[in-house]
């Protein structure tokens, strides 16, 4: 085998998150953190399943999803390689968005909602807003 893979995946079977999504999310997280860079090779399906005992099709499904999003590309006979990184700046540090959310959270608290209420409300809105994206 050529150069070893740049990351390995940890699968938590009790998390309630679909296994393929855990691989997708961990890959994206590694891209955001700079652990994975363009040109890096993801572990082969064989490597992943031998280490985690999950189903090979689950790995392939995750890689197809990452490929569909343009983050990785499969090169026949060579493996799956990172194409680009994920910019994180806008999502985590955009000041106006953060300020609005902070302001909204304060209002929710003032209205008598506790942390769990706020979290439930936020997740509900989050789910309904992004619902279409998931289904497509």
């Amino acid at each position: 085998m050529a150069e070893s893979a740049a990351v390995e995946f940890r699968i938590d079977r009790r998390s309630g998150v679909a296994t393929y999504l855990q691989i997708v999310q961990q890959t994206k997280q590694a891209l955001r953190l700079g652990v994975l860079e363009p040109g890096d090779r993801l572990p082969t399906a064989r490597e992943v399943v031998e280490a985690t005992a999950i189903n090979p099709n689950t790995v392939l499904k995750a890689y197809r999803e990452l490929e569909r999003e343009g983050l990785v590309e499969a090169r026949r006979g060579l493996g799956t390689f990172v194409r680009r990184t994920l910019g994180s700046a806008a999502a985590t540090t955009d000041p106006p968005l953060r300020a609005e959310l902070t302001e909204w959270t304060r209002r929710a608290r003032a209205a008598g909602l506790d942390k769990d209420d706020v979290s439930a409300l936020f997740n509900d809105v989050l789910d309904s807003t992004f619902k279409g994206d998931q289904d497509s």
Partner: protein
Amino acid sequence: MTGAAIEANGLGMTYGRKSGWALRDCSFRLPAGRICALVGPNGAGKSTLLALAAGLLRPSEGSVRVLGGTPGEARPRIAYVSQDKPLYPQLTVADTLWAGAELNPGTWDREAAARIAGPLPQDAKVKALSGGQRTRLALALALGKRPELMLLDEPMADLDPLARHELMGLLMAEAAEQSTTIVMSSHILTELEGSCDYLLFVDGGRVRLGGESDDIVAAHAVLTGQARDLAPHTVVESRTTGRQMTALVRKEGPVDPAAWDVTEPSLEELLLAHLRSPEAPALLTPSAHAGQEVAAI
């Protein structure tokens, strides 16, 4: 469309007039290349089904075809590990592996067998091995044969958690590389859940659920809300406490999200609900329907 690894039509098996039917009216199809969990309670017919597919039993009625032929014709391409892991007690580990090589000329993969049997004491006699070690040796023989279809009856039962994880990983790696079809039985779903993408749920001698695990789960929903009529959905199980009703249903059309809190059941919840409701109708996804090619002609 890929071929079928196993296709059963009206398959039934009885071990004698008095013992009733171990398996009855089983019709299903397992597409090649899948890793299939064969689950069900004790005495459901799992071992009978595997032994029929391996050609060790002859069906009392109906038929089973394996890799496009009879189980006998397919035998060189099948590896079957039965629950009791039959090995020759007087042979050593090394002798057993040698026998595996001699009995499978042309296909024997020494490396694959050695990867699994490596940790075993090579000069120990089989009768001196522990249950888990015997399982390891039996799986080494099965993988060394480089089969297209592996039929494994309770393969993980004797193994400690570490060995279970390691061997399951090796099985999955083999499947990833060779596109081997694997059928593994267990009465413990969680043992198999992460590794399998196909499900055959056998209960009372019948196949009650069959198909891609994801599709089977997606066909159902857990509804919580005010007690009311659940039509048109098929109710697998429901419970009413005061005004609140919780029901596991098979969806027939869209579920009204305003009326119900809708969640997806776990595979385990789904199986338990079916076990508690023996009258719930069977569900086979399209790929699990037997005889579709025949019907198309």
